[in-house]
């Protein structure tokens, strides 16, 4: 959540507090008057007061009294004082004498009686405030009962001023109060019209309205010139509250289209301040008139949802694509402006509405959070670690672990000698990642079915810490494969059942496998030898060495040890090695590579003979030229540290696309980028990526250039162009030349703590400053600061409290209902201004 947004929310919340002044103890309360004489003599000419008379001995008006007492403060904000007049026993005057009068409250302006209310109409604070204001604003708020009345008023207003029409299901409700309070502020600016007639509601709204909920229309009558046409109307989409009405009226009051002639980054309009996006129509001198009309049309469509600005490109030097015609600025601080090429105003509208929906969800979430905030601390105690939560939700399921032997300190060594190879998972039964891996591990026996000589086992390090440290296991989970007479191999691949099974399978033949005859070598390259691996598809790698190249051979063998389980490696160094390699037009030492798919054999000469080089070379050679990127294989390609040219496809890519891309990948010198594709059906998380880049899913397939390692810009290949080598190359050229504008940029955000921690230090004894030797640098100086803490919520809340309180008090001035304002909500700089505007 951006700071600006935050400010906005809190300032509105603050407003709400100011205006409706939820009463708190202290501050203004009920005035007590000893007698009617005293009261009437004290009435000033312009002052309004709500009085009720009660015999000195109270008789059961208690609930009413409580309500009226608590509304005293709210009413004071509107200059109405609430007075309780004590009737002496013997008094038989107009107000005290009649039994009836005691069940009523009386509204006076000066000493003139304006209205008397039966106490049953004043059932709570809302109804008291609503009814009193309704009485006071008799001229400002017209009450209508028929459509004809409404139309009359509308016609009168045309060309003069705007109208606010509200339907409330009943008077005295919270919505009624909200309308009245808004009318108190805006009544002189707009004509307010109120009704409780459901028929009127039906007549003014389009579809079938819900008569039990309130409804508010802003009618743009001021601009209406044609007498026959009704005024344009903009409905308030949110539930009726003072806050939403205020916001709505502000938006209606803003200019329809703002013309701007400066950097859009610097522009701020009322829309942005109110948390709505701002749409820029990028205009040029030649098309100004048309653009202006488009902008106005769009503005009417988006009224209340977003602002529209007309930006003249001739006046502002924009570093954006010439094609771009629309820009979208969101209220979130730090979000870059999006420049778009759109064809239809509908696209703009969809875009804005999507944005708002996401926003709404976030707001709801935030509100929830805030609510919880008040109840409890916040969400700190809710698990937000996906792995931990998933594991704990799964803990009651019994895992199929029958085929996995439990090893202990006692039987560990004896068990290892029972099978040719023992796979041991070292884990801790309390640790979530371990348990997640244990779940995948439990699926391994099914994958390995029919593989002889493999024993699957596990050791719980929480039970046997000595055994685990003896086996050099310092972190969980760890998987080791023990082979008789050999050093244990630690598994270093993905924690998945398939990956692990494949590792176990591959590591059952020695790596590299020494091939004795030419036939074996050929069979190996065809994937037919050794037979235990033949059912599994793997790229085969064969090292061919002449007897003279022992250095290279040793390095290759060592590399085989390192890559054991990950790569299928064979080795041939018989006398006819030369013949074998020459068949593939290389000379030893060389690698022969038979990829799993095509089985065409590539020959690669080996020049460097260090183990490290060899491992790196083999790893590199095993990478595909135009791979399909999946969750498990991405890290291999990320390690290359190159930008990605990635084609997102809804399913398999077409032959043509594949051919063109392959041509491109092969043709590029030094492979300056990783050309790859992503199958959204197989890797649906790709949708998440597209959504992050474009907010909506663009039409598929879509080709993107992603600078993963430098700058993080994302460029989209123009969808109107077809994916051919030529088109892509020329696009890439433009891109290199800086002629293209990125459609998105990867977030640079640091991974901060998701939520604050409990601040126990603060809860414990208060700090003793004398004890701290470095006054500048001790926690004692910043008691509420939570560890590491620029992010802690408690931080801002506590530290800023005093200053906020004082600001609020200063700005508000006396008698404006600041008492009882939760200081936390009386946020930062803007709210003072807002408040005085109100």
């Amino acid at each position, binding site marked *: 959540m951006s700071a600006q947004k935050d400010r906005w929310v809190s300032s509105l919340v603050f407003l709400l507090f100011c205006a409706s002044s939820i009463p708190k103890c202290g501050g203004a309360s009920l005035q007590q008057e000893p007698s009617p004489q005293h009261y009437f003599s004290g009435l000033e000419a312009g002052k309004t007061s709500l009085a009720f008379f009660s015999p000195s001995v109270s008789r059961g008006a208690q609930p009413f009294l409580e309500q009226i007492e608590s509304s005293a403060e709210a009413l004071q904000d509107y200059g109405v004082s609430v007075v309780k007049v004590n009737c002496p026993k013997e008094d038989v005057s107009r107000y005290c004498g009649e039994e009836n009068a005691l069940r009523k409250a009386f509204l006076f302006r000066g000493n003139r009686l304006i209205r008397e209310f039966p106490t049953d109409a004043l059932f709570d604070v809302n109804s008291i405030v609503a009814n009193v204001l309704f009485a006071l604003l008799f001229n400002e708020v017209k009450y209508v009962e028929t459509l004809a009345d409404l139309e009359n008023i509308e016609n009168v207003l045309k060309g003069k001023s705007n109208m606010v029409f509200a339907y409330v299901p009943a008077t005295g409700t919270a919505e009624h109060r909200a309308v009245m309070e808004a009318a108190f502020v805006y009544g002189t600016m707009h004509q307010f019209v109120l009704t409780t007639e459901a028929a009127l509601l039906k007549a003014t709204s389009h579809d079938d309205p819900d008569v039990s909920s309130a409804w508010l229309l802003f009618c743009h009558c001021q601009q209406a010139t044609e007498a026959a046409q009704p005024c344009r109307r903009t409905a308030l989409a949110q539930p009726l509250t003072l806050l939403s009405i205020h916001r709505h009226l502000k938006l209606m009051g803003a200019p329809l289209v703002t013309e701007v002639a400066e950097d859009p980054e610097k522009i701020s309009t009322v829309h942005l301040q109110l948390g709505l996006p701002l749409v820029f129509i990028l205009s040029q001198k030649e098309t100004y008139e048309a653009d202006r009309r488009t902008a106005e049309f769009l503005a009417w469509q988006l009224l209340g949802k977003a602002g529209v600005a007309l930006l003249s490109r001739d006046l502002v030097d924009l570093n954006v694509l010439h094609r771009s015609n629309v820009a979208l600025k969101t209220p979130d601080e730090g979000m870059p402006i999006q420049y778009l090429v759109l064809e239809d105003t509908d696209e703009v509208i969809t875009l804005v509405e999507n944005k708002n929906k996401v926003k709404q969800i976030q707001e709801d979430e935030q509100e929830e959070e805030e609510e919880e905030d008040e109840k409890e601390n916040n969400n700190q*105690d809710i698990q937000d*670690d996906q792995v931990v939560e998933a594991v704990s939700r799964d803990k009651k399921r019994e895992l199929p672990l029958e085929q996995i032997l439990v090893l202990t300190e006692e039987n560990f060594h004896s068990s290892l000698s029972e099978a040719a190879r023992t796979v041991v998972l070292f884990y801790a039964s309390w640790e979530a990642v371990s348990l997640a891996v244990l779940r995948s591990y439990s699926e391994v026996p099914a994958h390995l079915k029919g593989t002889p000589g493999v024993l699957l086992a596990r050791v719980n390090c*929480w039970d046997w810490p000595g055994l685990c440290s003896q086996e050099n296991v310092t972190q969980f989970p760890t998987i080791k494969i023990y082979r008789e007479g050999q050093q244990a191999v630690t598994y270093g691949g993905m924690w998945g059942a398939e*990956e692990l099974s494949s590792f176990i399978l591959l590591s059952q033949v020695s790596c590299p496998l020494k091939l004795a005859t030419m036939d074996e070598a050929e069979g190996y390259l065809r994937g037919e030898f050794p037979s235990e691996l033949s059912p599994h598809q793997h790229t085969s790698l064969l090292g061919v060495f002449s007897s003279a190249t022992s250095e290279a051979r040793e390095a290759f063998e060592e590399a085989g040890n390192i890559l054991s389980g990950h790569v299928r490696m064979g080795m041939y160094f018989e006398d006819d090695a030369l013949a074998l390699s020459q068949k593939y037009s290389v000379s030893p030492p060389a690698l022969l590579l038979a990829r799993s798919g095509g089985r065409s054999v590539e020959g690669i000469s080996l020049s460097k003979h260090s183990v490290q080089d060899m491992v790196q070379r083999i790893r590199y050679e095993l990478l595909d030229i135009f791979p399909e990127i999946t*969750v498990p294989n991405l890290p291999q390609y990320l390690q290359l540290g190159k930008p990605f040219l990635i084609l997102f496809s809804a399913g398999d890519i077409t032959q043509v696309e594949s051919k063109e891309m392959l041509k491109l990948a092969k043709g590029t010198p030094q492979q300056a980028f990783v050309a790859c594709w992503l199958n959204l059906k197989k890797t649906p998380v790709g949708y998440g990526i597209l959504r992050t880049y474009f907010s909506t899913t663009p039409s598929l397939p879509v080709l993107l250039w992603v600078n*993963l390692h430098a700058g993080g810009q994302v460029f989209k290949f123009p969808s109107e162009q077809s994916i051919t080598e030529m088109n892509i190359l020329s696009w890439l050229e433009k891109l290199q030349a800086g002629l293209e504008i990125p459609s998105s940029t990867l977030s640079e955000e640091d991974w901060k703590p998701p939520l604050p921690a*409990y601040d126990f230090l603060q809860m414990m004894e208060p700090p003793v400053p004398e004890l701290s*030797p470095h006054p500048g640098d001790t926690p004692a100086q910043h008691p509420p600061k*939570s560890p590491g803490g620029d992010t802690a919520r408690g931080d801002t809340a506590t530290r800023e409290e005093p200053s906020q309180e004082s600001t609020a008090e200063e700005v508000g001035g006396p008698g404006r209902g600041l008492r009882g304002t939760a200081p936390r909500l009386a946020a930062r700089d803007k709210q003072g201004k807002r408040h005085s505007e109100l």
Partner: protein
Amino acid sequence: LGLALYASSLCAASAATFLYHDYCVIGAGPAGLQAAYFLQQAGRDYVVFERSHAPGSFFALYPRHRKLISINKQYTGKSNSEFNLRHDWNSLLSHDRRLLFRHYSRDFFPDADTMVRYLEDFAALLKLRVQYNTAIIHVTLEKNEQAWNGHYFLLTDQDRKSYKCSSLLVAAGTWVPNVVNFPGSEYVEGYETVSINPEDFAGQTVLILGRGNSAFETAENILGVTNFIHMVSRSRVRLSWATHYVGDLRAINNGLLDTYQLKSLDGLLEGDLEDLAIVKDKKGKLHITLRFYLENRNISAGIDSITLPQDELDNFATRAPYDRVIRCLGWKFDFSIYNRSLRMMPGKGNIKKYPQIKPSYESRGTRGLFVLGTASHSVDFRKSAGGFIHGFRYTTRAVHRLLENRHHGVPWPSTVYPITQLTNSIIKRVNEASGLYQMFSVLADIILLKENATAFEYLEEYPIGILAELEMQTGRKARNGLFVIIMEYGRNFSGADKDVFYYNRAVGEAQHAWQSNFLHPVIYYYKHLPTEREMRLRPPDWPLPRPNAIHHIVEDFLTDWTAPNAHILPLRRFLENCLSTDLRNFFAESCFLFAFTHQKLPPSCQQGYIRMQGLLGSQELRRHAVQAGLLQDYTHTDFLGDRPPDSHDGSQEQLMRDHGIPVRSLQHLVNAKDE
């Protein structure tokens, strides 16, 4: 090493007069043998001197009634050997699993003879170099610039044989009985020699001086046959279950409290023994009076002329004459063998029975002289377990590690982990570590952060009293902040006069963890290593100076701190906020998304997925994560806002709802920044 070689060659030259060893250990009791074990393991040149013919000579005699009050728990329901040491108070530390006390005795409170046998086995099985029948009767210093500490220790035994050492480890225990001198103290029998046959007390009235475990043990033995027993001591009785100090009166010995409170004639009194006097009457009965009365009278006169308190105060409590008075006042350290130049000074106040030492267990007077075992209890007297086998076995190891670093350049053992293992490494230790548990508030695990907090170094069981000297004492660097992990009882919970059974004494909620009363892990975070001055000026009752942040893991009834939400989650949040990073685990799929949408990755993706150790997760787990709203399911690809809202039929609405939740939660997940 060169120095050591030089030193030993030097000694070889003077071998005629001195037998040289790098390390000399005085005493082959539990602490001496424990020290010998570690020296032996490290391959050091050492010797242990034992005045008796066998190890553990103290246990050969004491406790007189032969029942050890250190527990020997056979079963804990767990096989974790480290955890089980928390409930095994008699074993010494070794790699040999045969040397666990439970293999020696099945008794919960074993017999002292078993301890003697155990110690004999310990020395023999591990082939420790102990020189028996060698009583060191004098220790002095020889200045020498070349020596490790600027001097050698010269030891002389009862046969005037001399030994020379570079470092001296005193594990002699406290064995000199405390005696009080007052008129008539000659009639008092000592605990060392008093009969342990209850028959000898039949029909007698007994007064016991002292209120410790030996006094109550003595009383317990004769409770059934005496007329009555009175116990007198200066201070009130302290019950170990109220003070959480194992040296206070243990419930196993407190039978007399029962009979006292049930008015069964036995009783407990408070008074200063120094003011006491005992007079013997003609019948041999012993009368209690006050020194004050004796001073004012003519010595030559007979017993009849002595004023007894009851003459003036006829209901004086101890007016009944006693048949026997037994002194059970404990022991003190034998200061007599140390030359004045060693400045072995007794402590002040209630620790005067122990020599003065620093929190590093090094003598305050002499560099290179370390005090181990019971005699080192001044560091944590009446606080922790440093005076008992189950405590000093760990402090002895700590001293050994300090020595290894100081003299042999072997830094304190440590393990380096990636930062993703931070929460785990703490949880593992607080759940199983026995040294932290037994030596609560004395030994601490230290986590030293590496630069940029991408990795950390874990040091176990370092004495917190010398935290400020950590870099010098361990050879490890603490440049980037550190965590200190200790166990603590609630600050105001324990105490002699506290009600430790009050209602609602246990805290269950993680957010109130700082109010936990029972032993629980506490983690201190410092951005910089505290200085000596900060250590000195720490708030009263605080074992450490005020940290930059602190975390308490809420006490647990089972001492099992592995609950994901109550224990691990708040700890993770604390660590995250100290390091200002996100320590959550992510499935590979999330990391994949982050890799394409963020320029930086959270540590768990960075150190796992990117290094091809991603957590792919099983189907069920991913489904659970989706249901929890912590992982988004993109398989149904149509999403929010792509369709006009009215075109949804019911099932799609459902789908949207299912979908809607993940969106917002994922936002929550991705927008790691706090608003």
